[in-house]
């Protein structure tokens, strides 16, 4: 697997850091997002920077040097490589570049709900945001979730712009089912157990079923996945987990095969279909 040597980018960032926060945001953009330009089409480093920040990339602060140093000392890159190579064999997943960066340790939600971990996956690359205290198991859970997305995105082979809310529910639910299979229920994300199956069914009828065909660019898609003033937090994620779990309970499909089923097949074979 191609684990990109982002530790060198991070070292360059720490070496070029200035005294002011605002300057450091630019240093971060230059050292971390400029080198990412070849991995994206038709975007600038600012767009990449903003996008990664919104998904949990660290924000420059006085502690980041120390965190980066510890992450390098613990060689989190090597641990990641081992996990992802195993999963690639197990699921027949592709070789994609993997970028590891510190997460935003100042963010309370990220700290308490996700143990300081976040990630972002595309069909052709994956970002992992972790801390210097991320354990091997916690790293494995994060990678299992994210790399499950990568593999499925390649197998369904539909452009992201064409994927809809149902696809997102299935992607997220399946990724956590993979975590449960690989690491056991203790390593599941908090959002998997946030609402009961009964509540998930009510929410399905009220908010989700009428919107299954919504594309990702629609703001309601985002609100259903993450929550809003009226929609419960992480509703789409939670319902996705109930949906894929219910399919799996009656079908006992291997993860290798599950990854290759269409979202509609999984829905039709679940209690929600």
């Amino acid at each position: 697997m191609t684990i990109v040597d982002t530790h060198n980018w991070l070292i360059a960032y720490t070496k070029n850091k200035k005294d002011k926060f605002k300057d450091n945001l630019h240093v971060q953009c230059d050292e971390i997002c400029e080198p990412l330009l070849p991995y994206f089409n038709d975007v600038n480093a600012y767009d990449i920077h903003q996008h990664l920040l919104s998904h949990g990339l660290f924000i420059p602060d006085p502690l980041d040097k120390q965190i980066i140093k510890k992450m390098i000392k613990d060689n989190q890159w090597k641990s990641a490589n081992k996990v992802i190579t195993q999963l690639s064999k197990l699921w027949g997943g592709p070789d994609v570049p993997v970028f590891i960066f510190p997460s935003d340790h100042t963010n309370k939600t990220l700290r308490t709900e996700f143990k300081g971990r976040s990630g972002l996956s595309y069909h052709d690359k994956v970002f992992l945001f972790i801390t210097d205290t991320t354990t091997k198991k916690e790293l494995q859970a994060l990678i299992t979730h994210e790399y499950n997305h990568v593999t499925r995105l390649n197998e369904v082979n539909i452009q992201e712009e064409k994927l809809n809310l149902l696809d997102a529910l299935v992607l997220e639910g399946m990724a956590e089912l993979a975590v449960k299979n690989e690491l056991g229920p203790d390593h599941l994300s908090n959002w998997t157990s946030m609402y009961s199956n009964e509540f998930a069914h009510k929410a399905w009828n009220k908010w989700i079923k009428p919107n299954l065909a919504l594309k990702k660019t629609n703001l309601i898609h985002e609100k259903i996945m993450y929550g809003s003033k009226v929609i419960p937090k992480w509703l789409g994620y939670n319902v996705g987990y109930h949906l894929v779990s219910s399919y799996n309970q009656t079908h006992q499909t291997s993860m290798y095969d599950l990854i290759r089923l269409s979202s509609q097949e999984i829905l039709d074979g679940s209690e929600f279909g």
Partner: protein
Amino acid sequence: MSRYHSVCKRHVGRAVKITTVDGRVHRGIIRNVNNTHVFLEGVPARNLGGYGYGYYRRPYGYRPGFGWGVALGSIATLALLPFFWW
């Protein structure tokens, strides 16, 4: 004084895209202009998609209220952004 001084003054409050001579692109709302710098406040960037772990917060530029300065002398191009861009 840079010719961009008056241009920026005229467009305080507007969203602009500035390219500097080093090739950097700055997108933001003009908040202030002095003799040497134009100060921008961030505007939401483009959503680059992808599927995450559950954590997400909507981007509002570099945090709401956060602005940064661009030296007037370093500006290569300046374009006003239409509303639908941000």
